[in-house]
Structure formats: C-alpha cells, structure tokens
C-alpha cells in the first residue's frame, strides 16, 4: 500500500525515539506509542471506527496469557510452561465474584478450548466479561505458542469521541527495524479503517513513554 510516510522519515523518527530512551534510561521498559490526530471526521455522523491488527513483533512482551483448556490443551500448556486451568479448577471458583475478579486481574488475556469457552457463563458468571477479558477461542489445529504470540502481538485501535487516539506499537528494547515495521503496519491498518483513508489523518507521531514525540506526518 502506498504510504504518505516515507521510509526515510519513518526510520529517522524511530531512531530518534530509541536514541532518546537510551540517553535517559528508565527503571521500566518504556512503551512506544503511535499517536494519531484525525481530521474530516465527525463522531456524531461518521461510522464508529475501531479494529484490531496483528503486528509483526510483540509490542508488550510482558503480557500474560492464561489457557482455559480441555485435557489436550492443558497438557500442551504444561509442556510449554504456559499458565493454565482446566474445567475442574474453574468449577472450584464456585462462581465466586471475588475469586473470578482476582483471576481476571492476574492475567492480561485468556484463551479457551472450544468445549470450555461454551461453559464460561455457567462456570464463571459474567466476571470475565466485566473485566474485558472474555477468552478468545483456542482451536486444536494451531500451535498454542503461536496463538499466544498472536494475542500478544495484536493491538486495538479505538476511536473514543475526540479526534485523537494512541496505540502501543512497540517498546524501546526493539531494534530500529522491528519498531519501524510495526509502526508501518499499524499506520497502514489505521488508514484502511478510515472512510477517507489518508484524508482523515491530520498528524502522526511516535513517542516512548517518557520521551518527546517525533512527527511522522
């Protein structure tokens, strides 16, 4: 897809962001965000836009995913050092709101086998719904590790009423190349979400948590 952000500018900005974070090291892993300013978009009239896209490199490496699995998936999880719970373990929570809430807080996301996902309302009640952590489907045809990496690499764009939004696209320990690729993918996807594509984009910046913003467009 043709982009209005040249490769040179992209790499320049990414380099600046990474340099900036290196110059002043922080006690935590800084996230790199893509900040978007929109134009020609009326939240009262235009269709709401929001969407999820899988990036090439994992932007949040510390993300914890827990598998709610059938026998096969639990075995696979165990073999791969992935946190898991089976139907019995879920039943033990006894639909206790506090315990379900605690479980929801412990992990960033959940994946569940088909047989289990259908029982979630019965087993756990609406606790995971409320926490925004209802599990995604884990099939049997795919590698669990791959699916988890997919979940970790997926970001969500969501327009909230004001004409700007930001989304995490990486972190400062990534290479220039990796970060640039993630940013490029994110921008292309964003533009594809907008009705008038580039005509709806006023500005694009990237910045690390503590660094200054670098303008891409």
């Amino acid at each position, binding site marked *: *897809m*043709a982009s209005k952000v040249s490769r040179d500018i992209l790499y320049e900005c990414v380099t600046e962001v990474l340099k900036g974070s290196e110059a002043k090291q922080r006690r935590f892993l800084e996230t790199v965000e893509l900040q978007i300013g929109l134009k020609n978009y009326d939240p*009262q*009239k235009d*269709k*709401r*836009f*929001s*969407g*999820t896209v899988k990036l090439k490199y994992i932007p949040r490496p510390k993300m914890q995913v827990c598998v709610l699995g059938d026998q096969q998936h639990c075995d696979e999880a165990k073999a791969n050092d992935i946190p898991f719970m089976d139907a019995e373990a879920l039943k033990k929570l006894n*639909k206790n709101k506090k315990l379900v809430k605690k479980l929801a807080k412990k992990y960033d996301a959940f994946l569940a086998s088909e047989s289990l*996902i*259908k029982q*979630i*309302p019965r087993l756990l*009640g*609406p*606790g995971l*719904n*409320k*926490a*925004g952590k*209802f*599990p*995604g*489907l884990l099939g049997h045809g795919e590698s669990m590790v791959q699916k988890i990496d997919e979940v970790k690499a997926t970001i969500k764009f*969501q327009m909230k009423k004001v004409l700007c939004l930001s989304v995490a696209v990486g972190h400062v320990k990534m290479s220039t190349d990796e970060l640039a690729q993630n940013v490029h993918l994110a921008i292309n996807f964003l*533009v*594809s*979400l907008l*009705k*008038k*594509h*580039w*005509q709806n984009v006023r500005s694009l910046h990237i910045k690390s948590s503590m660094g200054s913003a670098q303008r891409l467009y």
Partner: protein
Amino acid sequence: PQSSDEESPVPDANSCSEKELVKLFQQEISPASETAASLKRTCGLHIAQSWDYARIAVGLSCKELQLLRVREGGELAVENRKLGRYASGIRGVRFFNGDPNSLLCCTEDGNVFMYDVRTGDEVYCFEDTSEGTKKTMTSCDINYNDRIMCASSEVQKNGDSFLLFFDVRERKYLGSYWECHSDDITHVRFHPSNPDLFASASVDGLINVFDISSQTEEDAMQYCFNAETSIDSINWHTDPTGRDLVSCVTTTNDLHLYDVESQDSVALFDRGQITQSLRRTSAIDCNVVGTHNLSNGSFFVLAGSNFNRGKDCLRTLRYDNKCLLPDRSFSDNKQIVRASVYNEKDQYLIATGECGLITLWKCRIDGTNDTGVNSASKSMKQKLHVSHRSKPY
C-alpha cells in the same frame, strides 16, 4: 474537490466485466422512489418500518425524527417532517412489533420517546431513572409482545455499561444489567418471536444472549460469543431447520454468524471476502450496512463501497449454506448508505445515508417491472424471485 486517487491507494472498481455483473446480479435496479429528508445538509443514520410496511421513520444526524408513508406502488411521501426534534443525537428508532402506529426513538442523552404516528404526538418519554447519572444511550429495541423495551448505554466513567429495561405498558423503569460488557454497548436486539430472548453487542467484541425471564443478570446470561473485535450491529436469523442464528457486522465490515444453541461459529466473512463476493477490488472501501431476513428463511447482506461517496456500488449478497452469493445490484444510488429496512411482502429495499436521501428500490423481478432493462434470462434464479403470494385484498 478531492481526487479519488487520494482517497484510497488502490481505486475501488468492479472486479469483473459489466457483462459478468449482469449475469451475477441479474440486472441493475433503479430507484422506484426517492425523497430528500431535508433541504439542509444532514445524514440519515437510523431507519425503521412499521409491521404493516405502511410507514417509515428516519433518524437524522441533525437530531430530527421524520415520518414517511410508503404508498401503494412504493412511492415515498413525507408525512411528518419533524415528528421529533432533540437536544442530543438520535441513537435508535423502532416501531412496535404489533402496533404499526407506535414508535420509539432513543437519544444519546438518555431518553426514549414514544410517539403515536397518527397524531404526531409524543405520548411518553422513558427516562433512565436508575442510580447515578443518566446513562448515555446507544441503541434501543422492543420485545416481541411490545411489553419490554431495552436501551443500551456507553461505558460510563466507573467502567460499567448498562442495559436498561422498561415496562412499556406500566411506563416505568424496571432495572438494568451492567455486568456483561466492559465497553460501549453498540446494539441490542430482541428475538423476533420469543419475547424473553434478547441479544446485546459491544465494542468489547462480545455478543451476549439473555433470557430476561430469569431473576438475575447472571442467570439471564445464556450465551456469550466472542467476535474478538468491535461489533457494530447484530441481527437474528433462523437456519433452514429453524435453529436460531445470530449475526454481527463488525466495525471493520466483517460478518460473523453463530448458531445460538450450539454456540458454534457457522460462518465468518471478513471484509476482503465480502468485497470479493460483491465483485469489487478495494476491501478498505467496503461498507457493510446490515442484514435482512427473507420470507423463505434465508437472509441477505446489504453492502456497498465508500468509493466515490457511495455512488458506484450498492449490492446485496444472499446467504446460502456458508456462502455469500451475488444477489441484487442497485443503480442510481447517490450516497453512502448507513441504514436500511426491507419489506418482505412487496420486496422493497428502503435505504438512507450520508446525503440525507431516502430511497426505495423494488427488488422483485417480474415481467412488468419498470426498470427499463428487460432481462430475457429464463434462469431458475430469476424464477425464484417472482412472488407467488397473492395480494391480501
């Protein structure tokens, strides 16, 4: 004036020849009737039709509610240009299921207005009288027997999003659910014939199905479908064996279809696949408006392209056994369509959109149609669309 090249990197176009298009979509159907909602610039964002198909109500972005008559022959006539005028945006318009003269309109600031369309009077205003601040509303619907009305809300400051229930006859607030979604609820739909069954959809990617005859929200929550991406709208369908299906259109113009009882995903069409079925080239310009049920038990999808401000493409795709098949193509469409209704009896498609026009197309193909294009094809497909129902009077 913006050049179309700037709008999308790969200009959207038909992906096959005109000849092929005619073969697939049979013919281009011209509008039978069209009317402008207003002289000032506005968008038609919501549309509803009475069960007897006699009336249409349109919710405009200028915060006005308009009433139209659909006359014999499909002619549209404005009956009440300003049935309602509001301080905040309209978020949903619904006629009652059993009463063609009662209409509901919900607004962003948390009111649901009820009208008698014969007199144009506002009969009642349902207000959110639940605890805390008045919830901003996003959608509303009324159940099969017109006794319960539900309005959904945006996510509030404390992180809760609400489903507010009202008793229509007693005219009072009944209670709410607030535990099943974690973000703006975008759409609510009651089951077409079961007065207790109800579905809600949200930006959080979930479709929740409830049996509201249960005592608590937790018990009411029957099924949960995770589309894993923000949902724009939902609809109920039945499969050929009579099983309940629920579909959703996502904010990225994908269509998901689930079998409710088995909770299986029946079909998933992403915008690329829908674009292909439509015979267009640019997936990022695809605009899925919604789905409509056909009297023979199937349903169709109404979709178009945003390219050239919606004028180039407005078509329907028929769902058939996990496939979306080319169905109808509508010509002389002048806008990006945002809402539509389908009259199953007369086979009229009525749509409104971003230019504030309300357009009626007759989908029925018979020997006497007035589109001016005589399709000489005697294929089975054409015969299926000829109505065999006799008129009731």
